[in-house]
């Protein structure tokens, strides 16, 4: 009798365990506990947004506490600080990453674990399209869970300035070039602001490359399967030169001294257009208190008619999960949470778009909706600068600074030859 009861209890317990084990990870996540360490390097408004995201996660998972590990020296580029932290033995569960080339470095060093199993068990296919999965993959293995993205081919403008100049957002390249004179006549002497002190001057080249040569060529260039001296690269730079020669901008020396575009563009009356990341939206809304869609807006890069007007440059942020994290279950659950509706809604409030289908895009502001719609129908390519090896990207930026100083054909040849020489040793 006793044995039979015991056997029945054992069978029942086994059945319950099997039922639990086969239950969805969402159910198991209810019992999450312990500390989750996130290597978080965003500051200012972005940092504040991230705190809100974390607070929501801990509210849903009261057993989990989150500790942010801020790497040292994050001003500008956080990669140095992340490397120092990792080499110094800091154990974290999650790394926030925005550089695909850096993800490869982390993978090669055995720091990241694949998330293909989690993708299947959590059903992330229902939230993220294959394109976003591919973006976070290396050689068919997925390592990154993309949670936000930005349109890098959107041109920002101040609505009152275009109204004063009597123009609407230009749709074609010729209209765009023609708008410079009208803006100058309206009292804006440098219609386009190019903050060229560090990297932002490369943005124009990158979208022009996509629009003149397409995403496949840009991907090949990023991987150095085609040389920088390829005529297609020269065509893109010559288009850039066309814009400079049309009087788009301030003197080269002024461009080379500008690091931070927001005050220049939005508190002075010199310039109108800016090609910059979508974090501009957050900065303008939250830091400068401007009204999205009223004080400022965006238009998609004007069409060039070269057969590649359906392309756009994008950036993205993803979560990478580590191999040595102390709380992998909580890390998996956080990755699931970040592409869920709760996190997407918080990000929308700050002006950031989520690639997740769970996101309610109606919560996005008007500017972000323009960008989201444009990216949705475009063939996209990740920001070129973030795909290049560190050595090369530095040379690429410096050489394009030289190009800004003298956008002649001879300089274009010299500049591309110099980048190619560096590329030959950088991979």
């Amino acid at each position, binding site marked *: 009798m006793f044995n039979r009861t015991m056997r029945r209890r054992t069978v029942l317990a086994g059945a319950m365990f099997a039922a639990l084990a086969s239950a969805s990870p969402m159910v198991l996540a209810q019992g999450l506990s312990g500390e989750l360490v996130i290597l978080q390097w965003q500051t200012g408004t972005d940092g504040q947004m991230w705190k809100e995201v974390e607070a929501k996660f801990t509210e849903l998972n009261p057993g989990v506490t989150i500790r942010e590990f801020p790497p040292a020296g994050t001003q500008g580029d956080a990669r140095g600080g992340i490397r120092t932290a990792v080499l110094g033995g800091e154990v974290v569960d999650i790394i926030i990453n925005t550089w695909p080339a850096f993800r490869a470095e982390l993978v090669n060093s055995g720091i990241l674990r694949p998330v293909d199993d989690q993708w299947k068990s959590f059903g992330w296919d229902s939230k993220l399209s294959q394109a976003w999965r591919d973006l976070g993959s290396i050689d068919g293995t997925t390592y990154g869970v993309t949670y936000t993205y930005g349109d890098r081919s959107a041109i920002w403008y101040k609505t009152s300035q275009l109204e004063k100049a009597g123009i609407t957002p230009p749709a074609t390249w010729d209209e765009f070039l023609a708008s410079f004179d009208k803006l100058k006549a309206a009292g804006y002497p440098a219609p386009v602001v190019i903050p060229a002190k560090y990297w932002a001057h490369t943005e124009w080249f990158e979208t022009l490359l996509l629009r003149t040569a397409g995403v496949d060529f840009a991907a090949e260039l990023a991987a150095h399967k085609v040389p920088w001296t390829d005529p297609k690269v020269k065509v893109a730079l010559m288009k850039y030169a066309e814009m400079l020669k049309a009087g788009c901008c301030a003197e080269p020396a002024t461009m080379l*001294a500008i690091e931070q575009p927001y005050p220049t563009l939005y508190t*002075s009356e010199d310039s109108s257009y800016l090609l910059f990341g979508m974090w501009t939206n957050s900065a303008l809304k939250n830091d400068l208190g401007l009204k999205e869609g009223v004080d400022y807006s965006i238009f998609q890069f004007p069409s060039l008619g070269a057969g590649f007007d359906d392309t756009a440059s994008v950036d993205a942020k993803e979560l990478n999960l580590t191999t040595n994290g102390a709380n992998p279950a909580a890390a998996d659950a956080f990755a699931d949470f970040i592409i869920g509706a709760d996190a997407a809604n918080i990000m929308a409030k700050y002006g950031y778009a989520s690639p997740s289908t769970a996101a309610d895009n109606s919560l996005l502001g008007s500017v972000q909706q323009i960008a989201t719609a444009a990216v949705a129908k475009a063939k996209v390519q990740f920001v070129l600068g973030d795909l290049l090896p560190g050595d090369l990207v530095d040379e690429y930026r410096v050489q394009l600074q030289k190009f800004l100083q003298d956008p002649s054909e001879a300089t274009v040849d010299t500049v591309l030859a110099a980048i190619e020489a560096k590329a030959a040793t950088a991979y």
Partner: protein
Amino acid sequence: MANSVAEQAAGPGEVSSSKGGARLRLPVTRGWRLTDAPAAWLLITPVIVLFGISVVYPLFDTIRISFFDIKGLAPAKWVGLGNYVTLFGDATFRNTLLTTLIFTVGTTVISVSLGWALAMLCAFAPAQTTPFRGMMFVTFGISEAVSGYMWLNILRPDKAGLLNAVIGIFVPGYAHSWLGDPNTALWALIFVASWSGVGLPLMLCFAAVQSIPRTVLEAAYMDGAKPFSIMRHIMMPLSLPGVRVAVFINLLGALRAFDIIYVMTGGGPVRATETVGYFMYRESMTQFKLGYGAAATVVLLVAVLVISIPAIIQRTAGAK
């Protein structure tokens, strides 16, 4: 009963009895004595340990790392002198050497000359110029990063920049991008660094002038020497020891300059203001080529030693 440390240090008969009312004579060093050892070691051990941890270990580790190829998180590979060979073949590094030389000589010449000249003038009215000297010395105490941010606004490329606004009074509409023009960026940095550094040479040279015996100056007056002659033939030559110290300190500071470049130009435009110190940072911290960056650090260290050792030998010889 054992003698006191002071008695031991002084040796027999060196310390007079206080009852006797005799003057305390300074101890005479007569070489190492076994009985001194515990107290001496106790006193210097913390310094040695701290010096070892914060200076000696990082120094030797930097030299060790410079023999490895370390890129990002990839495993280190031994390359021997490979990093040094690459470094001297690197046109960018050679350019930083030249930039460093111009920056170092420029800031040293300007700040020491200006400090020395001001010290000469102040020496004619020491009491009345005390507030002025104090203000000048304050610039030396301001962090380079803070003064860099301050000067960033003064040198703004638009008309709102203070310098452009002042020039604009005489040349309406004037606007020059001092830090964005490769032809002026380095000189703008030299000027700012000299402004920050002029306080120390002023104080050192002023102190040197003040140490000139009054009798010498009075004798010159009695002989009918004019103020300019006194300055040229007496004050300037006799204040040279102060000038030498100021040159030495400024050279070392300028060679290692980083903060002001980081804040104001980031080594640009087009690497026009990239010194060895900034190159080292860029290679090590942004490119994370630790071995290569360490090799640049060692080269900078050698340059610092080349300047320091003769100066230290000279100072030590002077002290003897």
